[in-house]
């Protein structure tokens, strides 16, 4: 069993009455030559690290490497706790705050799991820990859903890119959003086709996103994009499970992402030159943090 395209994943899963995570597990067993239990145990460990990053980032204010961010996750979380409700709903607000929490841990050179990258490492744990905290999903089911996220990420990485330097932020945050949306669909009992539709919708909403880190730091805008795209992932899952039409097939959206990435100038691909990094404030911050001449 193997797959490179999202449509193949759907055919493999639905043809055998399996979930996408089951297909991923079978492929991993075959490819790595190890036992299913070992893979599940290692995946459970990855989630333990992901959850620890969420809990740490939400309870501590961590100094970031460049000093541009810190405390935003806690600001969101405190307001939500104080008011007892939020504008976008408890799960969405938690997911957003948790995603930012992981980004803050990452920017402080703390321990995180790259999902699929460190720059986009907030989205998947943010959403999954928010769902865990609702008490409606078992830890085992959440661990299993990481395999679904992995399957989607593999298909995207091998057909397009998950590197901001190669494909812009769409390749990092876009991919993470798509992976998360699919994991959520599976957790909520949706079909493999709905999961892949969610991938298409999530990526569609991320196309064109450039990688423009201020001063070359993984701080601004990374943290905001992690927080806000956690909500996009939930929204894409909801749309797909409602049957919202995804007119352009997900594999073709991935193809579009690849073409758009190739068309992006280097200044918008993780060089810290264009976009927000090139604004007057972005340039001033770069001078202040990294000094005058070179970087």
């Amino acid at each position: 069993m193997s797959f490179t395209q999202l449509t193949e994943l759907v055919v493999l899963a639905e043809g055998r009455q399996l979930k996408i995570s089951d297909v991923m597990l079978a492929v991993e067993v075959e490819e790595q030559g190890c036992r299913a239990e070992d893979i599940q145990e290692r995946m459970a460990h990855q989630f333990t690290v992901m959850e620890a990053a969420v809990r740490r980032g939400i309870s501590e204010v961590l100094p970031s490497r460049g000093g541009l961010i810190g405390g935003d996750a806690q600001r969101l979380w405190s307001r939500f706790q104080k008011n007892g409700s939020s504008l976008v709903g408890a799960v969405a607000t938690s997911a957003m705050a948790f995603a930012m929490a992981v980004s803050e841990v990452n920017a402080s050179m703390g321990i995180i799991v790259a999902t699929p990258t460190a720059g986009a490492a907030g989205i998947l744990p943010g959403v999954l820990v928010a769902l865990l905290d609702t008490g409606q999903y078992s830890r085992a089911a959440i661990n299993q859903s990481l395999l679904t996220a992995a399957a989607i990420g593999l298909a995207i990485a091998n057909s397009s890119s998950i590197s901001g330097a190669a494909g812009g932020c769409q390749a990092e945050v876009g991919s993470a959003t798509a992976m998360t949306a699919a994991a959520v669909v599976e957790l909520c009992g949706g079909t493999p086709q709905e999961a892949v539709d969610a991938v298409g919708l999530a990526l569609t909403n991320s196309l064109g996103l450039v990688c423009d880190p201020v001063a070359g730091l993984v701080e601004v805008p990374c943290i905001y994009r992690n927080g806000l795209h956690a909500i996009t992932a939930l929204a894409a899952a909801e749309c797909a499970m409602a049957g919202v039409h995804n007119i352009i097939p997900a594999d073709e959206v991935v193809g579009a992402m690849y073409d758009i990435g190739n068309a992006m100038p280097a200044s918008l691909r993780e060089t810290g030159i264009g976009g927000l990094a090139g604004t007057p404030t972005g340039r001033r911050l770069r001078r202040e943090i990294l000094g005058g001449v070179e970087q």
Partner: protein
Amino acid sequence: MRPNMPRPVKYHSAFDIIGPVMVGPSSSHTAGALRIARMARKLLGQDPTAVVFELMGSFAETYRGHGTDQALTAGILGFATDDSRIPRALDMAKALGISVVFTKVSGALYHPNTVRIKLTDGVDDVDIVGTSLGGGKIELIEIDAFPVHLSGDRPAVVLWHKDRAGFLAAVLAAVANVGVNVGQLSLERSRKDGDALVAIEFDGACTVELLDALDGVHQAVQKIRWIKPV
């Protein structure tokens, strides 16, 4: 090309996507950079006395912001991607008396995240080029100017040797004898009968049997280095 035609892919495992567990802030510029440098260290075989990092593309533009300088140095010291000493690696190298230099060079011919690493221990030296593909995934693409394809995900061996008839057959026969499968192989030579380099990646674990199998495999071997997964 048919869309579903089997082709070589770079990302093979679910843990390429849900992983690595790492010290931030960037999987390509921190974890990936560290892994490239760690492979360079394994090719030298020990602590270097001096190292020069030639940074290209995005690496050159953002290395300080991303902590790439600390990560590359941590890799030279042999640290793992989740080692909490990574943010202090430059100071640690200095304390060990290792000279570390960063320069920016044009990387127009390479992937946007590429670094050339020149290492010496005063006696031996090695010159490698590595690319950070994203999400911590890497590829070593040159060793001493010979093109290679090493992922750092699987055990590998690199043989510096003289171009001789039957060399590759002898190596592969020795490998086959211990029942190990070759996942990736490259062979390049400077000229006929000249210096040559073979790099092989294996499936499965790096066993004592495999190490022994290539010990004294052919008299044309000049140097052999094993690389465990990084």
